[in-house]
């Protein structure tokens, strides 16, 4: 027997009516032709019937529309495959309270751009309180102690600082990719930590627009973050990794 809730359609005010509402702008001057164009787009989007309930000019060359209509499509919930992040996204307050419980002290994060890379845009977006994409940086989190070493940090210097600060996690950022500098630098870094500290090395996290999250193993780090990563994701990951570490130790 099939699950009656397996197939669903949008709900306007009656089960199965498929009603949705959308808005968009077309580069067409305001007028009947523009409305017709909006109608056509809505139909092609699967809205049938589609009602262009509002249109208004934006300047001379554009028209804005609000469209209501019923979509033909069915959603098969069995086919919905969600890429599960292996950790939940936490709010800053949740990050703080969890860390407090798990560590009973602040989590120490040391970060910087290694090699000759002077592009601190990425590491600063993650670490500076100013943050990125509307999220505050890691400095904002009460239970994180952030040491931002800035640009052009040498690997030995990074290892030294991580040791002196008793870092739980080391974040490195690599923007420049000429001759695979980002890969070589990161491998050099992870090798140095393994050599200097063995299993007691901190969590190693690499970030940069040209990294592929699948490269963690190849790079010798615990986690790779790519373009568009926000501070909240990094903080949530750190909490998750710390919990996992404690779980193993316990």
């Amino acid at each position, binding site marked *: 027997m099939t699950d009656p809730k397996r197939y669903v359609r949008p709900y306007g005010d009656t089960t199965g009516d498929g009603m949705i509402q959308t808005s968009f702008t077309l580069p067409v001057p305001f007028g009947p032709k523009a409305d017709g164009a909006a109608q056509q787009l809505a139909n092609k989007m699967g809205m049938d019937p589609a009602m262009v309930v509002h249109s208004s000019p934006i300047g001379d060359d554009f028209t804005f529309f609000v469209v209501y209509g019923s979509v033909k499509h069915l959603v098969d919930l069995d086919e919905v495959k969600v890429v599960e992040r292996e950790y939940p996204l936490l709010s800053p307050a949740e990050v703080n309270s969890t860390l407090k419980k798990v560590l009973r002290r602040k989590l120490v994060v040391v970060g910087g751009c290694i090699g000759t890379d002077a592009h601190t845009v990425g590491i600063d977006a993650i670490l500076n309180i100013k943050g990125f994409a*509307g999220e505050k940086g890691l400095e904002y989190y009460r239970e994180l102690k952030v040491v931002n070493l*800035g640009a052009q940090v040498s690997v030995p210097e990074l290892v030294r600082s991580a040791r002196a600060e008793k870092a739980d996690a080391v974040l490195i950022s690599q923007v420049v990719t000429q001759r695979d500098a980002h890969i070589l630098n990161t491998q050099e870094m992870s090798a140095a930590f393994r050599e200097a500290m063995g299993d007691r090395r901190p969590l190693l996290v690499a970030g940069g627009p040209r990294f592929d999250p699948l490269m963690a193993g190849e790079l010798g780090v615990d986690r790779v973050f790519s373009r568009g990563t926000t501070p909240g994701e990094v903080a949530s990951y750190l909490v998750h990794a710390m919990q996992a570490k404690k779980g193993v130790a316990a």
Partner: protein
Amino acid sequence: MALLDLDPNVVATARELAARAAEPVVSLAKAHTTVAVERATLRLAGITGADSTHRAGDVPWVNRVVDTVREQCGLEHGVVLPAFHALKEHNLGSLTELAEATAAGQVQFKIPAGKDLTAARKASTSAVAKGLKTVDRNKVQRDKLVAKLGDPAQRPWIYLIVATGDIDEDVVQAQNAARAGADVIAVIRSTGQSLLDYVPEGATHHGFAGTYATQENFRIMRAALDDVSKEVGRYVRLTNYASGLCMPEIAVLAGLQRLDMMLNDSMYGILFRDINPIRTFVDQRFSRQVHARAGIIINTGEDNYLTTADAVDAAHTVTVSQLLNEHFAHEAGLPDHLLGLGHAFEINPKVPDSFRLELAHALLARELFPDAPLKWMPPTKHMTGDVFNGYLLDGFFNLAGVLTGQSILLVGMMTEAVVTPFLSDRDLALQNVRYVLNAAGSLAEDFRPAPDGLIVKRAHQVLGEAVDLLERIVDDGLLIAIADGTFGLMKRPADKGKGADGVVEKAGAYFNPASEMLEAAQ
């Protein structure tokens, strides 16, 4: 107006305490110079361009000269004496030629003495005076254009942001925004420019979530807005950011290219960019002196505190910062009508009476600074991605703005924290503002908060808390208060932070013709 019946004695006490808190910092600012102040001075003296052959990419000539002077004879006497002495000694025609010779390693800088000293003082003074004359001419030109084309018909002025990363696209967006009703255009800077210890050169087309502030980009945008100003029949103002490590230089470039408003906060760089406190206060003082000369309205950044701290609990820190910003600005020669002190609509909408509390805070700022063009900033922290709810919140923000007589209104976008606004989002946001202005623009006339009501009581409470905090700051010292995390919850010790190595204590014989002329004009 005076709806809050603030006790003039308490207000006077607050100002007095702010002045006392600021005093040691002002002395510190007077006793030091920075690499950025020296570079700004040389820019006033006419140096332009960049060394495009350097292996690190384009390095502005001014950085080459200041760095080399610092290496060879230190900056405690200022850069102009060794620079202008070398100019004469090597018989070079311009500062740019001097920079080229410097890069080629042909120049040995030294502090001149005797007749050479007199000559270097004279030559540098006349070069810097020329730069200041351009700044003065731009101020006159702005006044002329405003007289001819007119100011916006209404208050608050409508302030819109563009940020494409490409100056040519910015021009298209800015001109369209002006046609749609924007009175002020702000070009947001590329992420991270505040941490560059140089100002990039030329027209730029690849910023990160914003466009680099460069002299050429300033020129391009001001010219585009002059064109559209004629078309829409009012003078459309241009805003950029004098913040970060190059505050003084960007202030100079803004004066040279007739920008009209500049973000310039006394503590933002320290708190939110981890820039060294001393560096910030020295740079800030010089940059504000330049803004005063240029007739540029500064916008301060108190809104930022409320994005990190709670907008109710930390309301008094906004007042304290406004009072400090006011004092630092006055001290640097900025009159009230150029003080765009900032504040924001950031109270959690789930808090009961949140709108009444917003009105209380907004009115307090209005009545404390009656002659300042206050900058009213939209909600960001509680914009969640639910754009419908966000649109409503922006409507209440607009209403609070007109009801409490705010002067410059940064238009809130329902896409805040979601995506960069679509064309339609900006249009809807402007419709929201227009509706509120049209429906309730004069409502302030009828608005009389009850004398013993929540709004009045709350305003008095915030002012009282501000006075208490100022007393603590006077006792501890402002630098200690900053180090302890008083503002925006950030702890910033005076000896830490970026750009600390660019701070230099002045020698007795320090000479800077720009500082002398700017101080004398005050």
